[in-house]
Every structure is written in structure tokens, then in C-alpha cells.
């Protein structure tokens, strides 16, 4: 099911079909397409239950990325785009999803998706995307109560992490593990600005710091920034992390240390668990189902 042969150095693009599930024509089949700045995700749901998804890098053309991601989610399912009762676009490129019946902000979609993945106990969602970070308070139904967003600055975002992966020549999927491979946690870098932090990191390397130690100092600073955003929106248990950085164990561990609480664990997405990167697309498909049903009634 996972395409092991398609490996990219940044992160793995893959698709998944839960083939134990069957769809019938009378089912309400909906899709969510989340076009992020770095990744495009699409999820297909049957009567509000996850059926398949696809994740790939966003290209320079948003509409094309949306179509590709959706087609990948549809692959091996026997479904065609015309079988979809309702499609919701979300994410940074949500207005550029050609087949969408509606566009909904990624805040509402991540809230709904987190509620689906982890259940009704979730109250705080940290979504770390490619170019922004959001802290979202939600109720037991996955509805947004309030949120805070940082979208003008690369500090703490996936893009900022890519810059450091490049600088230290460590594959992005390993930076979390590597950042924990240290004897003692160093002081965080003093600059949160990624441009300045890069200069600072080069100085630390010259001073003889190991790559892992420099990465730890940077990851720590970014985790502090994320924890601050969570504290400002108001931390209430349970806390979960969505988006690409939910897979960065260095970030997750440090956020837990700083806040003094455990997050609900990231599901085993390489096995049969749901991928927290798809939370936005899942939420979009769920909201799509509700919108479809509402339209049928009237």
C-alpha cells in the first residue's frame, strides 16, 4: 500500500487505501483537498469514515497540485471524481482547487480533523505547516473556539526546518531523531529569526559544536516559540500536533518538556494509523459531508 519505491529526500510522498472498507453507490462519498505551501493532501471519506488519502509535494501550480493529490487518493479505489458527492478545498491554496464545491479555512478543517483522528478529548491543536504555525482551541465536537496564528515569519515552520536540514545536511525525516542524539540539552539559539539563526548556527559549528548539538539548540528555540503560541491561545488538555512537524520527534518531545504535559501520541501512520499531516484534508472531507447533507434537506 505504501509506495516504498517512491522516496524523496525531503519527505515521503505516498498514498493509502483502507481496502477492508467497501463503498456503495448510495454512500455519501466526500473528499477534502488541502493544498499547503509545501505539501498537498487529499482524503476520501465514505459516510464520514476515512477510506483513502494521498500526500505529495505542492508544485509551482496550485490547481495542478490539487488535482494530482486528489487523483492519488482515488487511485486503487475504483472511484472517480464524478463519484464524489462533495469536495472541500482547504489550505493555503484552497481557492485554487478546481473541483471543490466550497473552500474552508484550514483552521476549521484541522480542528475537525484532529477531533476525528484523536477523538473528543482534544481541546488544543498545534498545526505546524510549511509556512505558518497555528494554535487552535476546539470543543468536543471539533469546532473552533479560538486560534492564534503566526504566518509572517519562517521561525518554527516546516520551511525553517528545511533551511536547517539543508545547512546541516541531515535528511528532513531524520532531524528530529538527530536533534535528540546529544548528552545534554544546549541553550537554545538566541535568534528566532531563521536568517539570523543560520548565521548563529554557522558560528557554533565553527566553535566545534556537533551537528546534533546545533540542531538541538535550534529545535529547542523553535519549540519554545511554538509553546509560547500554545500558551497564548490558552493550553487545555488534551493537546495534539498536526501538520508535517508532528512527525518531528525532536519538536514534539521538547514541546512536551516545555509545557510539562504529554501530547496525545502521533498515530502509527506508517502502519495502519491516521497521518496527522492529513488532518486538514480529513476535516475538509467531514465538513463536506455535513454541507452535502444540509443541501439535501433544503
Amino acid at each position: 500500500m505504501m509506495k516504498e519505491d517512491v522516496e524523496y529526500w525531503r519527505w515521503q510522498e505516498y498514498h493509502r487505501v483502507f481496502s477492508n472498507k467497501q463503498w456503495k453507490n448510495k454512500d455519501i462519498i466526500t473528499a477534502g483537498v488541502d493544498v499547503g505551501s509545501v505539501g498537498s493532501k487529499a482524503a476520501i471519506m465514505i459516510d464520514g469514515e476515512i477510506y483513502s488519502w494521498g500526500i505529495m509535494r505542492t508544485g509551482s501550480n496550485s490547481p495542478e497540485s490539487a488535482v494530482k493529490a486528489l487523483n492519488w487518493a482515488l487511485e486503487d479505489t475504483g472511484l472517480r471524481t464524478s463519484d464524489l458527492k462533495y469536495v472541500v478545498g482547504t489550505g493555503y491554496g484552497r481557492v485554487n482547487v478546481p473541483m471543490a464545491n466550497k473552500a474552508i479555512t484550514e483552521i476549521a478543517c484541522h480542528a475537525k480533523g484532529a477531533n476525528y483522528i484523536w477523538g473528543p478529548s482534544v481541546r488544543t491543536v498545534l498545526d505546524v505547516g510549511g509556512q505558518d504555525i497555528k494554535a487552535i482551541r476546539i470543543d468536543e465536537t471539533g469546532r473552533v473556539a479560538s486560534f492564534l496564528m503566526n504566518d509572517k515569519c519562517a521561525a518554527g515552520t516546516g520551511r525553517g526546518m528545511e533551511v536547517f536540514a539543508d545547512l546541516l545536511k541531515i535528511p528532513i525525516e531524520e532531524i528530529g531523531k538527530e536533534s535528540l542524539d546529544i548528552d545534554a540539552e544546549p541553550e537554545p539559539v538566541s535568534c528566532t529569526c531563521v536568517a539570523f539563526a543560520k548565521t548563529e548556527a554557522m558560528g557554533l559549528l565553527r566553535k566545534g559544536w556537533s551537528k546534533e548539538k546545533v540542531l538541538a539548540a535550534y529545535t529547542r528555540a523553535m519549540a519554545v516559540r511554538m509553546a509560547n503560541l500554545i500558551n497564548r491561545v490558552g493550553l487545555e488538555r488534551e493537546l495534539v500536533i498536526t501538520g508535517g512537524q508532528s512527525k518531528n520527534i525532536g519538536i514534539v518531545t521538547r514541546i512536551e518538556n516545555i509545557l510539562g504535559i504529554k501530547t496525545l501520541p502521533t498515530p502509527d501512520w506508517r502502519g495502519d494509523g491516521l497521518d496527522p499531516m492529513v488532518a486538514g484534508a480529513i476535516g475538509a472531507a467531514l465538513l463536506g459531508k455535513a454541507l452535502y447533507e444540509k443541501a439535501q434537506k433544503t
Partner: protein
Amino acid sequence: MGTQSVKTLILKDGKVLARSKAFSGFEPSKAAEETLAKALAKAKLTKLDLDHVTATGSGMEMALVSDSTVSMMGADARAGVWLFPTGRTIIDVGAEEARAVKCDENGIMIDFVVNERCAAGAGAFIEAMARALEVKLEEMGPLSLKAERASPINASCVIFGESDVVTLIHRQESKPEIARAVFDAMADRVSSMLFRLGLTPEIVLVGGAAKDVGFVASLKRKIGVEVLIPEFPEFAGALGAALTAANRVR
């Protein structure tokens, strides 16, 4: 003691005798000594002739040659009003920091705002974008003046700005328009800082970025008023420190 370069200036009885500048490098204290030695040689003086040495800038505590220090804001205020007696708002845009200082007719600081934690809105922004554009830093300004409009780029962050510039290059947008966008973006950041402080005329612009015609044009367009620029804008901090030193001798 700037983040990128160290500037030394010698003042005698209210007249500038000499200026000297060097890269801060890894040992700013050494750069400070070197520039002081050079300035002294130009002025045909020795260290013993100096009554008082005051240091300023983000690395001021590394200037071992100094007798005292003065805040960057205090130095800017003093220098701005000394250079232009009608100046009441002094904007200082350096390599990694930017600030705006409101002051009275005596060059005493009343209020200030700073940007010191973010590379957007400081000279580092232009440098990074020039690299992405593959244009020499000093060519950015003249290039931007050839543009009729600005290309859209993410104004708020060097990292996002860099990716935007690369995308624009791939789309074969013209370089002057991208360069103009870079300066507009930076002027946006600086002017938003300025609007927080309030625009009290006249406006004096100092710091290394004041030498960049592209940035000056964008800033003027943005704030809609004339700005006064001294002949050696990057020495304003050093001048302010020297003026402070003169006060401390008396």
C-alpha cells in the same frame, strides 16, 4: 560597533577630524582597535590626545578601547539633530537592526521603536535578496529604479522572500521589478515601525541602508515625506558616540 562593521570617528571642538570603517569579523574588539588606529593616523593624533572615547552599537561592550558607552538610540538622537538641527525623527537602518528615535531640539531621545530580532526590515534582507537574484548588492538600488511596478513577494520574512524571488526568476519576471519589490517590502517593514512611533518632521535617515538609492526611493514613496540624509550615514552612530564623549569631557 555594528553587527557587520565597526565605525570610528574622531571629533575635535565640534569638527569631524577623521572617519574609519572595518568589518566586525570574528573579533570586533580588534576591528575597533584597528579603526581607531587608522582614524588617529588620519587625524595625525595619538591615543593620548583623546580626552574620552565612547562606544555604541550592538557590540559596544566589546570596544575595549572605550571609556564609556551610550545606547544606540541615544547616539542616533544626538547625531541626527547635530547633522540636521530640524530633525526630530531619526531612522537608523543597519545590517541586522533597524530603529526609529523621536527626539527634541537638543538631540535628547523622547521615544523609540526597534526591530532587532528579525532580518526583514534591515540590510540583511537586501543582501539575501541580492544573492537570490544573483545581483551585486550595490547594483540592487540602481536596478530597482528602472522598474515601473513591483513584483509581488512575501515582504515579511527573509526565508519566504528568498523562495518568492526564486519563483519569480523561474517565471522570468524582470529583475528590476523584483529588486523594486525587495525595497518596497523593506520600506514597508521600516515604515510600519515608524508609524508606531508617529511621524514627527523632519525625518532623518541614517545607517548603511541610507546609502542605497533603491531603499531611499521606496521609503519616500511609502511615508510620503522627504527624508534628510547626511553625507556619511553609516557613521551616524559613531558621531553620536563622539558627541556624547565630548559632553562627558566637560
